[in-house]
């Protein structure tokens, strides 16, 4: 088992999002910046905090631990080697520490699309990943992919900043995260990934070492298969054209279940109804309800419906009272809007007839639409019950 440790500390540049140098997947909290002196002070601070390991907002005690991961690898008879190196910001810097171990260093990106679907993109350090191209290849249009927010790392992958790794998929919370692997890994003798970590934040600290596991790509496959994942390798540098005749070639990697993370900055549309099945916690649901309620009033009807519907885990049900309420609300809204001083003066006694015709013409197509949905929903419930019906045994 090799151990590489460099005593020299490179000066670490202030981390910025529009970064120079390729991201290694390491995100350093913005609190800590440049020069060595405050660095060592913060090291003392950080070290003592690390001792407590309760610094950040989320507790990672629900995730699989590093030791559990390592023992599972051993159970699967996967050979791995462990390496350590200090926290660095860029892939180049990382390569300086462990580059002499021969290729296979990985760059891991945790991405999110506009519909809150998450992806881990794991590539060789040299592979260039263009998010715009990837977004188009996944069928998300241009600019559909962003780096995932920091909270997501803790909540979904259960890893600290800087430690995105395919191994994180072992966690239940990451079951809807899609994994894209660089086909370049297959040609490497071994590949390097971070194992899981119980720590919550990592500080740029010369004495704090990050662990790297080296294993063969085929062994990574073995591990992924053991957690029910199908390992798929893709040429992530390719830039095929995407158009009417060439559909997005990576579209099958888009997860079908989406993960709802309370994100008040995100523009969530009401049409997320069915996907909210995957949300278990009531906290997240109530956040969604308040987010929906603040939408413009034209969607108020919809927002009212959505949270109530979500309560039923099997999806949407044909709720008679709610349906009737919706119809009466729409009708009375139309009625009230049409009874004004003007219209009373204009039509006088005929106002009743005028209004009645108006209601019929304005509302009929909308009511037909909602009632058809109601009918189809009720039928579906019946159908579902029918196929699960246990017939009485006839002797």
């Amino acid at each position: 088992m090799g151990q590489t440790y460099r005593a020299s500390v490179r000066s670490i540049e202030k981390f910025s999002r529009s970064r120079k140098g390729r991201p290694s997947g390491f995100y350093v909290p913005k609190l800590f910046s440049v020069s060595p002196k405050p660095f060592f002070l913060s090291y003392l601070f950080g070290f003592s905090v690390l001792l407590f390991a309760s610094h950040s907002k989320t507790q990672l005690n629900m995730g699989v631990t590093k030791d559990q991961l390592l023992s599972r690898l051993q159970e699967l008879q996967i050979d791995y080697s462990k390496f350590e190196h200090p926290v660095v910001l860029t892939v180049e810097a990382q390569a300086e520490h462990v580059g002499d171990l021969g290729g296979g260093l990985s760059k891991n990106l945790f991405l999110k699309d506009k519909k809150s679907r998450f992806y881990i993109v794991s590539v060789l350090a040299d592979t260039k990943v263009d998010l715009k191209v990837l977004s188009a290849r996944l069928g998300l249009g241009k600019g559909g992919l962003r780096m995932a927010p920091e909270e997501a790392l803790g909540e979904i992958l259960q890893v600290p900043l800087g430690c995105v790794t395919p191994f994180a998929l072992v966690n239940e919370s990451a079951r809807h995260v899609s994994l894209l692997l660089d086909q370049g890994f297959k040609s490497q003798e071994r590949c390097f990934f971070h194992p899981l970590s119980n720590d919550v934040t990592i500080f740029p600290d010369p004495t704090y070492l990050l662990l790297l596991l080296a294993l063969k790509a085929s062994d990574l496959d073995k591990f992924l298969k053991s957690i029910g994942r199908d390992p798929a390798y893709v040429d992530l540098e390719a830039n095929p054209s995407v158009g009417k005749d060439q559909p997005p070639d990576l579209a099958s990697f888009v997860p079908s279940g989406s993960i709802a993370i309370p994100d008040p900055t995100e523009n969530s549309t009401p049409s997320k109804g069915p996907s909210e099945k995957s949300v278990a916690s009531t906290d997240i649901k109530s956040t969604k309800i308040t987010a929906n309620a603040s939408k413009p009033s034209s969607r108020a009807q919809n927002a009212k419906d959505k949270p109530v519907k979500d309560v039923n885990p099997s999806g949407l049900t044909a709720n008679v009272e709610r349906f009737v309420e919706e119809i009466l609300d729409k009708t009375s809204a139309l009625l009230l809007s049409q009874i004004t001083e003007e219209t009373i003066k204009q039509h006088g006694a005929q106002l009743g007839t005028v209004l009645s015709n108006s209601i019929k013409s304005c509302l009929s197509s909308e009511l037909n639409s909602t009632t058809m949905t109601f009918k189809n929903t009720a039928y579906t419930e019946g159908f579902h019950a029918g196929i699960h019906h246990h017939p009485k045994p006839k002797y």
Partner: protein
Amino acid sequence: MEKTEVEEQTKDEGQVVTPWQVAAKDSGKIDYDKLIDQFGCQRLDQFLIDRVHRLTSRPPHVFLRRGVFFAHRDFNDILDAYERGEKFYLYTGRGPSSESLHLGHLIPFMFTKYLQDAFKVPLVIQLTDDEKCMWKNLSVEECERLARENAKDIIACGFDITRTFIFSDFDYVGGAFYKNMVRVAKCVTYNKAVGIFGFTGEDHIGKVSFPPVQAVPSFPSSFPHLFSGKDNLRCLIPCAIDQDPYFRMTRDVAPRIGYNKPALIESSFFPALQGETGKMSASDPNSAIYVTDSVTDITNKINRYAFSGGQDSKAKQILYGANLEVDIPIKYLNFFLEDDEELEHIKKEYGSGRMLTGQVKERLIKVLTELVERHRRARAAVTDEMVDAFMAVRPLPNMFN
């Protein structure tokens, strides 16, 4: 060797309309009169529209009134039979090549829903996932997934589950359906297929053997769980006019195997935002309005990209009026604005210059937003269980009530 359809069309008319290619002559507009002549179908005239009005006791659909569905084959016979009390069933379909649908995709489904409600007849919807797998080179799994996703948007158009059967080729082909496929296939020589569809020596055999799959839902015996014992039931196929070759072949084969010829009712093409000469393209999201577009998206797209027939300046506009022939907002209103009187008024005012482009666009945005919103609400209510129910091979006991 027989000239292929494409070659013939290019030589004679300059425009090419096939299931895989639609091109106008010299990048102009499609000449629909020539197309009708060339294909040999009939114009849908006012007399037929009035007849539909009488038989169904409800106003004919916007698309009929405005000439969107403008051509037919044997629609008269269908109406004759209907008057006598003989029912028919509807057959339409979609090739699920992409997840996002735009308004142009919805047109045949909106019209089919109207037909289902007006005539109270059953409907089968074919999702040709195998076709897309073969022509677009997608994986089987991807096509199956797309078929299910598209099914949700189709269901959101408001079809009645007690009268509708949706099926995907990968799931349903087999049994009686396949038997009919073989019967049809035996009646079409390879040379004939090449002539109609333009296959070459380089095309794989999957493509060559596909046409029967799209032909066979026109025959009621393909659906024994629905129409058993009703071998004489007629079929009406609402589709876009570029699908005509498939059904010309079907109508040719039908009498030879003892079945009724299916009737057709055909629509013109939905123009791209950039104008008739532009192409709607999946890689250019600004060439069409998608059902997933937000209000902002719609507003921006119409304001910025919709090709306007109005004049360059307000002064000129008042003087000359707008060119209604090429104006896209007017064309779109033609499709989607229900009120005939209001549309006439707008056309008159805009054409004479009393109304400005901005006002027309504003009206269009309102209409489209309402449409897309309603579709989105309906789509949100479609669950996987509902899709399963629509796609289940089950009897439809009240399909003619």
